[in-house]
């Protein structure tokens, strides 16, 4: 078999569990098994679909990244494996799985093995609250926004434990950098999110999207009457999500040319694969939030309804959500391949001296506009 002994030892119980549980669950759901309530059935299907979405994204965002990078650099990316290189991620996954899960001597065994999971699991958990469409939410939690940020904070712990538990000086340096980076960039992100919550009066993500019903001009990014700095708030949120997920130009954590591979230097095979999946899942979560909060979520930018098959494409729904999401992800990749890396001081300066004052200013302005806009509106309406 091409899988290494240790990988086989770890994977076998899960495979057996999956093989036993899937027919049971599927059969039970089919016959409407009375012991399984319908809500639970729905959640099980939704969670399986979300894990598949996360895994599929992790695999195919790599393909997209390699293609975008290639075309920016005037070359073609993967093209031999499958048409347009589409089978490449699967082959890379098989390669990662067939490698030995090396645990170097002198590492802390529990921290070393747990660290990748701490990066992947919170991101996948956060998918539960994201509304892909009006009815396609795994669980429409009322404090959905808060839950996502709570889980995002666990991400930095994964990096720190991975770096520290690796018993490698390069990894420790990178972990220390990553912690200060994440702390610095959570603050403007949360201030911006607080500003949005002030505007939307709710933390339920599906309701936030439904408040942006209408045309393009109803999206929060263009609603300058709630705050004149709304596009700037979107930019701040976007930059902070780049920094939270350790993407270039803020990728000091895994600065390839300086620190080999940073906090995941000592991880081989699927350990590295899990870190990788976690990074891409975090990117998807961060950009989904940006789409939901600012760009109208699953709302279509056209103000009107269509019928028939045209309506299938152009009405509100999951296709618009995915389109906006992938445009933002393309921008993330575009930025990665254009700019060099910031230094630690440049990065912290940007956050503490530029982003935090601007986001605080935005918060004040929004608070002011919320209170004053009704009076200003009557003044303007009265005058005209």
């Amino acid at each position, binding site marked *: 078999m091409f899988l290494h002994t240790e990988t086989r030892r770890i994977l076998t119980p899960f495979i057996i569990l999956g093989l036993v549980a899937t027919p049971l669950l599927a059969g039970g759901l089919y016959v409407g098994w009375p012991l399984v309530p319908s809500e639970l059935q729905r959640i099980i299907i939704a969670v399986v679909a979300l894990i598949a979405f996360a895994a599929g994204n992790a695999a195919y965002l790599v393909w997209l990244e390699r293609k975008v*990078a290639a075309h920016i650099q005037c070359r073609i990316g993967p093209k031999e494996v499958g048409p347009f290189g589409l089978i490449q991620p699967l082959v890379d996954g098989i390669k990662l799985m067939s490698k030995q899960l090396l645990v170097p001597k002198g590492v802390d065994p529990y921290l070393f093995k747990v660290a990748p999971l701490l990066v992947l699991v919170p991101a996948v958990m956060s998918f539960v609250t994201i509304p892909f469409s009006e009815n396609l939410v795994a669980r429409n939690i009322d404090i959905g926004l808060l839950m996502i940020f709570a889980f995002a904070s666990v991400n930095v712990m994964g990096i720190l434990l991975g770096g520290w538990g690796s018993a490698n000086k390069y990894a420790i340096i990178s972990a220390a950098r990553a912690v200060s980076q994440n702390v610095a960039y959570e603050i403007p992100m949360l201030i911006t999110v607080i500003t949005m919550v002030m505007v939307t009066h709710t933390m339920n993500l599906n309701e936030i999207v439904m408040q942006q019903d209408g045309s393009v001009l109803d999206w929060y990014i263009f609603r300058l009457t709630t705050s004149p700095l709304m596009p700037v708030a979107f930019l701040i949120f976007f930059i902070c999500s780049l920094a939270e997920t350790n993407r270039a*130009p803020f990728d000091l954590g895994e600065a*390839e040319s300086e620190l080999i591979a940073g906090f995941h230097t000592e991880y081989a095979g699927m350990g590295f694969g899990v870190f990788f999946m976690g990074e891409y899942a975090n990117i998807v979560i961060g950009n989904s939030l940006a789409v939901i909060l600012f760009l109208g979520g699953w709302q279509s930018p056209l103000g009107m309804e269509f019928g028939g098959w045209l309506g299938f494409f152009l009405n509100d729904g999951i296709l618009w959500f995915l389109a906006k999401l992938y445009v933002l992800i393309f921008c993330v990749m575009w930025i990665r391949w254009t700019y060099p*890396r910031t230094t*630690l001081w*440049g990065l912290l300066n940007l956050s503490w001296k530029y982003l935090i004052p601007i986001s605080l200013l935005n918060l004040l302005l929004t608070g002011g506009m919320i209170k004053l806009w009704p009076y200003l509106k009557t003044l303007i309406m009265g005058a005209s």
Partner: protein
Amino acid sequence: MSELARSQNQETFVLNLGPQHPATHGVLRVKLEMDGEYIAKSEPVLGYIHRMHEKMGENRTWAQFMPNTARLDYLGALSYNQGYVKVVEQAAGIEVPERAEYIRVITVELNRIASHLLWFGAFVLDLGGFTPLLYAFDDREQILDLLESVTGARLTFCYFRFGGLYNDIDDDFITGTKAFIKRLRKRMPDYHNLVTNNIILTKRLKDIGILSTEMCRKYGATGPVLRGSGVQYDVRKNEPYSVYPEFDFDVPVYSECDSMARYMVRMDEIEQSMRIVEQALEKLPDGPIMPEKAPKIIKPAPGDYYSAVEAARGTFGVRIVSDGTNKAYRLKLRSPTFSNLSLYGEASEGMLLADALALMGSLDLVIPEIDR
């Protein structure tokens, strides 16, 4: 900031930027004693690619040593060819025809542009920007194709001969070079907009890696490192050789002494090299490329000769001690990067690791040339 950090933290750890590292271009080992993120002490360790070129010079005839000169600094090999050929011609009293001198200048300057383009790409790659490398390589590919059509090689050129050249150039080369210069002139603003004016890069390079003028003089740094610290010294202007006095070009000098100054010196040098090539192509005379009475066996008169040329990385000097036979008695190669690297130990004290690597990139190191 570093004083405070050092006084509070008594512990330092040794980090080995080993011979295998993405940022040290070649097999250079740097032993760093780190105080957190700051460098307390650094010591470059050389010799991992010592191939005994100078010893080979003693066991090969004068003509047989030619391929060795290209393997020293493989990115700017034609300047090294020129340095060696010049000192032997000086020793043996061989006259070079004018057409050969013009073609030598054209090819050397094209090679200088190629070397600086590669340096530009690799430097920005060290800083984390992956794309300009490939744009620079696209331009460099045009130069290498042109030089291959003339010399037959792309990297390790063995093109100059004592008294002239191996092959003559043809019209395709001349039209190709003119087209290339036009193309590169159009692309240079893209490089400046994408990289030079980028705020992330300016924050990374301005006021980082200060190499004061006394430090450069103390360690004998030459080339863009010295010119980025305010000293106007270029062998082509200060000790002119070949037909350089006939061309009108500037020597860029910046006095800020930081990494940005060295970067700008090299970018401006690309522009000046293009000017030289244009002027040389216009003034190219007809004639032979080897002297009529080229000596078959070179036997310079016994004596001690030295001569220097301006390579892409600094002053490349060759000293030969001849005892009248057909082999050198002693052949000494003065490598510019060796002197440039020797100031790294003093310059990088107290710097952040990332800044120290930016400094190393701005010194433009090619390790095979240091170790010979």
